[in-house]
Each structure stands twice: as structure tokens, then as C-alpha cells.
């Protein structure tokens, strides 16, 4: 998959999010910061995002998508 396609699909679900992606081919790391994740546990966040790529993950077009999903508050609390 192309990283732009991944970002576009995530953007459609989280229009306000700050999205950053690294990696190539079938193995990506997605960094996403959005208010949408407030009140959601890690599993819920990942499930929601991975569901966008269900077909690609099943077919192997996408092997792995590492997801770091945070709220703006969590992001701000990280040490620089």
C-alpha cells in the first residue's frame, strides 16, 4: 500500500487528527493524535483504526500497521 492511501483513509474517519506515517511496502507505523480517542482504551483505538484496513490485512497487502494513537493531552504529557 502507499502511505498516502493509508493517511487518506484514516483522515476520512478522523478529519481533525494530526497524522504521521513512516515505513514502506506492507509495514507501516502510524502516529495519530486526535480528540476522538478520549475515553477509549488502547485496544479500542487500534481496533477502530485496523478495521479500516481489514481487507488489506487479510490479503497480506498490508502485513503490519503499528499504531500509536494518542489524545492531544496524552501527547502533550510526553517528555520531549
Amino acid at each position: 500500500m502507499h502511505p498516502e492511501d493509508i493517511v487518506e483513509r484514516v483522515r476520512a474517519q478522523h478529519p481533525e487528527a494530526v497524522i504521521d506515517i513512516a515505513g514502506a511496502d506492507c509495514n507501516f507505523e502510524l502516529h495519530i493524535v486526535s480528540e476522538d480517542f478520549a475515553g477509549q482504551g488502547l485496544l479500542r483505538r487500534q481496533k477502530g483504526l485496523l478495521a479500516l484496513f481489514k481487507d488489506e490485512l487479510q490479503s497480506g497487502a498490508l502485513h503490519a500497521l503499528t499504531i500509536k494513537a494518542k489524545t492531544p493531552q496524552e501527547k502533550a504529557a510526553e517528555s520531549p
Partner: protein
Amino acid sequence: MKTTDKIRQQLQENPVVLYMKGTPREPRCGFSAKAAAALQSTGVEFAYVDVLAAPAFMQALPEVSEFPTFPQLFINGEIIGGSDIIEAMLASGELLPMLKRAAG
């Protein structure tokens, strides 16, 4: 027995199960390696299933867990997550007490 039933049986019989690619000793994927290493670092015993050696499980597990990728960690029959989540919970100190409670 259907594969999904076999999975449910495994989850009932084992408090901690890691479905992974390869084995903890010889992982066949970097993410499975990370997950197994994190679990091993806790010293708590866990069961594992090599989904590469059991393709039917690889196909059926996402139906049971509603989680599409591997590895997948289950504690007391509940999906906890993949390697990102396992590592985050190890770092935050949540993982060890959870495993200890489950393994009793």
C-alpha cells in the same frame, strides 16, 4: 470440532495465551518476537500457538477476537491486543499484575 470452537476451548483452558508467528524461541516475525520477549520478561508462564504452523487458526482467530493482526495476546479469554499494546502495558506496569492475577 470447528476451529473457532477449538480456539474458545484453548482460551478456556489457558489463562494466558499468545497467538504468534513462530515460537518464543524462534519467532518468525519481529512483532511476534517483541510480544513474546515482553511476556517472557515478566517470568509468568504462558501458552502459545504458532499460527504459521496452524493456518486454520490464523484464519479463524480474527473472527473470534475481532482483531485482524498477529500476534494476539489473550488473558482469561479476553483479547488484550498485539505487540504495541503488550509493550505499552509492560512499560506502564499494568501487564505484570494482570498476568499474575490470571495465572494465579
